[in-house]
């Protein structure tokens, strides 16, 4: 008797709920005409950002590449005349990328960042291969203030030894003072 009752109740409740939803606002949107809101931290298309002075942030350290579970990032480091290390080439094969965001987590310079752009569909797989020129944006992305070279001990043109944010002036090795 009790079971019979609960069965009926369940049916009625379901019908009630459905009826109620007929009058609520729909969550689905008319994509692509209408765009859903994606939070800035959403993991979509990957970009390479620049530091506050407008220089490329990426120092080609390879940490993103090694963190990548699908091995879809490859790059080569080069040392430029200004003492900065940059990527000679930087390639992401988005046909392999699973947008896990590990590269962003691994990046010590905040260079590589995932953006909320998820529209990464192509008819040709080959078109999903992005080179540095496709990845590099002109701003600092989510971290407007960070500049790796100001923290690091490496001298670059415009920042000699001892001029970093946390540095004392270089020791005079031949000085006699203790």
């Amino acid at each position: 008797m009790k079971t019979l009752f609960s069965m009926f109740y369940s049916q009625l409740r379901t019908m009630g709920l459905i009826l109620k939803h007929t009058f609520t606002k729909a969550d689905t949107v008319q994509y692509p005409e209408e765009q859903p809101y994606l939070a800035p931290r959403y993991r979509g298309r990957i970009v390479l950002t620049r530091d506050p002075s407008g220089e490329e942030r990426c120092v080609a350290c390879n940490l993103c590449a090694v963190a990548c579970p699908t091995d879809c990032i490859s790059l080569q480091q080069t040392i430029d005349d200004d003492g900065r290390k940059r990527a000679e080439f930087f390639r992401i094969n988005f046909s392999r990328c699973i947008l896990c965001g590990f590269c962003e987590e691994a990046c010590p310079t905040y260079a590589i960042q995932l953006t909320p752009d998820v529209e990464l569909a192509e008819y040709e797989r080959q078109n999903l291969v992005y080179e540095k020129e496709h990845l590099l944006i002109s701003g600092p992305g989510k971290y407007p203030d960070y500049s790796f070279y100001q923290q690091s001990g490496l001298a670059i043109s415009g920042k000699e030894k001892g001029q970093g944010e946390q540095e004392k002036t270089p020791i005079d090795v031949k000085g006699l003072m203790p």
Partner: protein
Amino acid sequence: MAKAMETVTIFIDNQAYQVDKGNNLLAGVLSQKLNLPYFCWHPSMGSVGACRQCAVTQYQDENDQRGRLVMACTTPVTEGMRIGLKEPAAEKFREQVISAMMTNHPHDCPVCAEGGECHLQDMTVMTGHSSRSYQGKKRTFTNQNLGEFVGHEMNRCITCYRCMRFYNDYAGGKDFGVFGSKNQVYFGRQTDGQLESEFSGNLVEVCPTGVFTNKLFSAHFSRKWDLQSAPSICAHCSVGCNTSIGERYGSVRRVVNRFHPDINGYFLCDRGRFGIGFVNGEQRLKTTKGINQLSPEKLSRLDVAKTLVHHRGKKFIGIGSARASLEANAYLQQLVGSNNFSAGLSNQQMAMAATHLSLLNKYIVPSVAQIEDSDFILILGEDITQTAPRAALAVRQALRNVSFDKAADIGIPSWQDSAVRTIGGTERTPLFALQSTPTKLDEVSQATMLLAPEQLSQCIEALITKVQLMLGLSVSSEKHELLATLPTEKLRLLEQITQSLLKAKKPLVVTGWSLQSPALLKSTEQLMSVLHSDDFMRYNNESSEESEYLSCQLAIFPPESNSLGLMSLLEQESLSNEQVLTQLSHDSGDNDVFGVILLEQQLANFSNNQLQQLRQQAQVIIAIDHSESEISNLADIVMPATAISEGDGHFANYQGILQRYYQVHTTLSPVQESWRWLNLLAISVFQQPERVDSFAHLQKVLAEECKNWPINISKDVENDDVGIARQTHRNSGRTSQSANFSVHEPQVTKSSASVNTFEPPLNFSMEGKSAENSSSQPFAWAPGWNSNQSINHNSSGNNSESSERCFIYLKSDPLLNQSWSASEEESPSQPNLQTEPVAHSLFIRQSTCFHDDWQANFNAEFTLKLPINQLTMSTEQLSGLGLKSGNFVKVLLADQQVVGKAYVDESLSENLCYGFFHQLTATITNITAYVSKANDDEIAEHLSNQQQLMMQAKEQQAQVLARLKITDQLVPIRMVSGGLDEH
């Protein structure tokens, strides 16, 4: 240091372990593959206790609960000793030591070339120190320019003193030191400048941080985890150091040391470490010459066959070489027949080879580790610091044996480095050198003497007489007289040598090929036979009390990495260079020699005259080589071959030990291994049906065809060998590196099967097991140990001393071909005397570490290190020319005229001069030099040439780098390792 291994039982965290009694606690803990952080201890350099990182808790007995902190590296192990690794106080202490080191450490890891293989990173992770608590400002230093090879980034230093201890104490460097005090200690040179030691590259591996980095590697950098590596053998001298070569995106990036307990240990020389650049050089041959290629894309076997078919059945002379693998040489010899095979050696050198081989047959050659063990060293006419650098480093260690003995007497173990050095003071094991040029070892030897090669042989003879007299043997009166005619100073030296020799328990004689003197080897043979005579042995066995006398050992250093491998193939009927030319000029009708096949041979031992003769008389010259040379320009057919990192093979080192080098990476067609080219020749020219398509197959063929093939090819365990990975398990970019061409990932290159169990197959991927010992280890790694220090975690399994080691086959009957000792060519006539005076004396070439090896010479960095042209002569001779030290002279040597600066050496006799001229090859030595004053035009020309050379080198350096950066992105879809027709 530690010899026979005696073990004791110690308890680590209440677990019993057996560790080496003769070593310290830290080494004992590490040998059990337990993790204990350390910095300043080094297995070859011992302990000084500078870093305080290796603290452990030592307990009095089972009941002791508190224990006390001790530094493991300065604590000897004792039976039943109890220690706690995981004891919280010790763990905390270790964490805080790192924490203190980190206060000033720069935020550099992403831009530090050491990152990913940094011992400091590993140790920081190991201690669990994860975030810095120090918020103050960091102390900084400015860096120095230490020359072409080693970069300097002093901010990263943790003051472990390892660099100083290696560079100064271990390698005898003079231009490096430690400056400053308290937390401002600085390691570097007094002023900027090229590090002078031949071993400076080891700083990169010795320093546990990124202070010293490999500049050439940094310029075209790759993380260690991205390198595809394989075990290799250094191709730059006969010591045969074990190396590991790393490749990324199709180009070679660097060479690092691969531990070998008996040969190189933990150290390489700079020629071996930085000489690899030639593989990427501009001079590499990448296309064929004289072969008509039908398809524009690819050379096919058919193309080659069509060209070669014209020479079908003709008679060829094959000239092998000491930088080609044993396999390629043997294959060539097998194709042309041993009566048409030459080693590219002149008559005189063939005579040397014969003596050398017979000496190898008679006396055991010491390994580098055994050199380190000797207690008396006599060097005869070889500047080993320049020609066999790693062996010279071993000699320097042997000099410390006196200190080790003294320390042992008062109970100080050999690993207590600073104590042993203090006790030893300046006392050294006796080292004597009778030589023709001054060397860097002079300053540490007891006595040296500069002699012309001929006098050197005389001197050895006198020494023999002296020894015989000491032994109370009768000597002929002539010999007595000879001794009597010697000047007192020579006599005193001989006296000294004999005295030390008779006292020695493990004497060693070292000589080599660089004087190009058969007489020297002959007299060395006589000396050895006296030192091995029954009388001498009896004398030593009587006089020795406790320790056994080891019969005198002999190390002879031939010039190249596979010299002995090549020499071991020589037969009675093998041809010398002179004989090759006579054979070619013979007109004997049908059976006429038609052409020559040059296997990786630049014919350095041919004079210009002889080269011309060869070109005129040979109908066709086929050159198989990896780099452009005069010969590849002369040749009719050029076949581009692989360099050391691109192929497989065996080299025989100075001891005759055959060591395998593995292919590190594949090449782009048509570059392929020499033996693959030889195989094409075999089919088309020599009408052999067999197609050899893998290295393993080649081994089998050679084992069947050559009697006494030295390499064991039995393989017991078959098929289940999954192989060893050439790539690390975190190799990155696999699905992206060639995606610019195609998103479809290339197939993995197949690797050749192995033919025996001790040379396992290596895979061109990250799949496979890890190596059991360093002899087949592509790169050093152990869990938690990413740096080269990981070797301490897997070195215990090294079995290089096992019975599986191959040794070249030595024929029992000596090579005796009378025509080899035929008299030398007529020496060039005196230069037509102009008005100025001409002095003539015997010229000895000074060996130089960086410029003696043909292959290494292609490195622009080595050219930048080129010493200036110079000639050192006796005071009388120079003043006889009316010149002063520092003036320019012109020198006529063989058929070349060179200009250089003249210097004076007081100790030189009238008839001897030595020097270095970069235009001249290493074999131009021990010949007469005609010296005269250089006129202004000649000087100007010389100076501008020199300058141009430097500028070219700089340009070349930039060019290579620029090209490599382009080719980085041209990673081919499929790298082929199976020859021309593999798809």
